[in-house]
């Protein structure tokens, strides 16, 4: 067997493994989320299907496979079927680029499916493709609410994608590479990037909440406003595929945040004196960090109310975008003139930026929270359907 064929077969195996790992994680994430939300509301959560409710995900999956797959009369047949496939395909592909260990550390092969030098750019490109799934799904449903949900969703996702792309510019300047591996290596030598890019991390965190359509930014599926947004006309496995895509995106976002800002698969070095080699334990650190962020996603869902659509857009464009640019310029200025001092100064400046934001939080909130000018009563009557 030629060498390249062996390599491709290994990749195929890894891709299938990663896919099944992600799908299992998704299934159990739904259970964990329901259990945790229940705990936070002093309830118990699903505990009847299997011990501790552990078979609940299997029951849900079997139910969605065996349900009738409806397609409403006005739906566009081809696009309606393709949209969930695009959504889940892009969501799963995005995760393959995350390194889960140093090269050759997985039984002699690399612990990732693909590793491009332009890793971050590839990731951003794939997540942009995910927007197509949601928007086309909404459009092809041939009904009013899905279209509104799809429009809102795509506007939201592209807006926050901008913030996402801009908030990592400072990080890229520091590291000088877009490859995930290099970024992890840089952090192993110089310290976790969260230390020097607190502001950038805060912006990235908010953007990834909005990108994955989670509360407080889950407007596209705001049940009280738009029925279920782009999901309204979907049933059976297609509906499940969209849900799957959302949760897989959440897992990917957690992994990306862990890799970019929290040292990726490397553990904290200060633990080394106690247990030698602990900072390089394979996989465990990455999984721990992903689990932490997933918990954060659920915790925030239980805590924060949803934003109104105009607040959401103002938040993205008036706060996130200028702040991301400010963060970029801050890092740029430091790297140009302050390099002799040491990186801790940049960390301090970045932290000061976040603290300043908190100190001025009332002023800052006014940027996106106050309704702008009132609408004319006459104008209000002719406004097209679709609302604010």
């Amino acid at each position, binding site marked *: 067997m030629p060498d390249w064929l062996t390599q*491709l077969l290994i990749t195929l195996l890894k891709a299938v493994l990663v896919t099944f790992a992600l799908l299992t994680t998704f299934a159990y994430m739904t259970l964990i989320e329901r259990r945790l939300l229940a705990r936070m509301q002093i309830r118990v959560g699903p505990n009847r299907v299997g011990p501790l409710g552990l078979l609940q995900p299997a029951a849900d999956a079997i139910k969605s496979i065996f349900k009738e797959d409806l397609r409403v009369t006005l739906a566009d047949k081809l696009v309606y079927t393709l949209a969930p496939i695009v959504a889940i395909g892009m969501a799963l592909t995005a995760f393959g680029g995350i390194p889960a260990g140093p090269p050759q550390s997985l039984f002699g092969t690399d612990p990732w499916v693909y590793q491009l030098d332009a890793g971050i750019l590839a990731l951003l490109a794939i997540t942009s493709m995910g927007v197509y799934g949601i928007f086309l799904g909404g459009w092809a449903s041939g009904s*009013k609410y899905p279209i509104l949900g799809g429009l809102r969703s795509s*506007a939201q996702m592209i807006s926050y994608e901008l913030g996402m792309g801009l908030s990592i510019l400072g990080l890229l300047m520091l590291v000088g590479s877009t490859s995930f591996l290099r970024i992890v290596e840089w952090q192993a030598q110089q310290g976790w990037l969260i230390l020097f890019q607190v502001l950038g991390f805060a912006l990235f965190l908010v953007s990834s909440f909005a990108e994955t359509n989670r509360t407080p930014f889950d407007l596209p599926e705001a049940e009280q406003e738009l029925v279920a947004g782009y999901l309204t006309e979907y049933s059976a496995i297609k509906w499940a595929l969209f849900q799957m895509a959302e949760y897989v995106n959440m897992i990917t976002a957690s992994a990306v945040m862990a890799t970019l800002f929290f040292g990726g698969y490397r553990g904290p070095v200060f633990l080394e004196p106690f247990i030698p080699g602990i900072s390089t334990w394979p996989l465990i650190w990455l999984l721990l960090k992903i689990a932490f962020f997933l918990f954060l996603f659920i915790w925030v869902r239980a805590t924060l109310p949803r934003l109104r659509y105009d607040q959401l857009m103002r938040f993205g464009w008036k706060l996130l975008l200028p702040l991301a640019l400010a963060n970029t310029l801050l890092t740029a200025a430091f790297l*140009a003139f302050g390099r002799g001092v040491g990186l801790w100064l940049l960390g301090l400046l970045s932290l000061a930026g976040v603290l300043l934001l908190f100190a001025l939080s009332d002023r800052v909130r006014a940027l996106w929270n106050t309704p702008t000018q009132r609408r004319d009563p006459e104008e209000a009557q002719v406004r097209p359907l679709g*609302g604010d």
Partner: protein
Amino acid sequence: MRRGDKGRRETPIEYANFVVMLLVALGIGVLAVIASALLGPKKATRAKLMAYESGNDPQGGGVGTDQRFPVHFYLVAMLFIVFDIETAFFYPLAVAYQKLVPFVFFEAVTFVALLLVGYYYILKKGVLEWT
């Protein structure tokens, strides 16, 4: 590759790996849809296939009807294209930044300033207001 870099260099096979991952991911979706189409019951009735409208006959909306939507979504998309192109120009600058300082700092400032002029314009035009 810079000297002293321990990072590995990407090989053409990485792109093949990427394609493999993409195909597997899309394949999962296709399989799921086919499985559901084969396994589920098929007893569609006219009422079942009606679009959702809380029990009423659906009005407006949908593909092929002349339902119109606010121009804001279009504006957001245009702004996104413009600003995303600016971001695309910024990535190479950011990656090569450390080799080019300090002069390139002023270039970066100029670039951001140009961006901000456009931003200020749309801000004052009220494009970022969703009333």
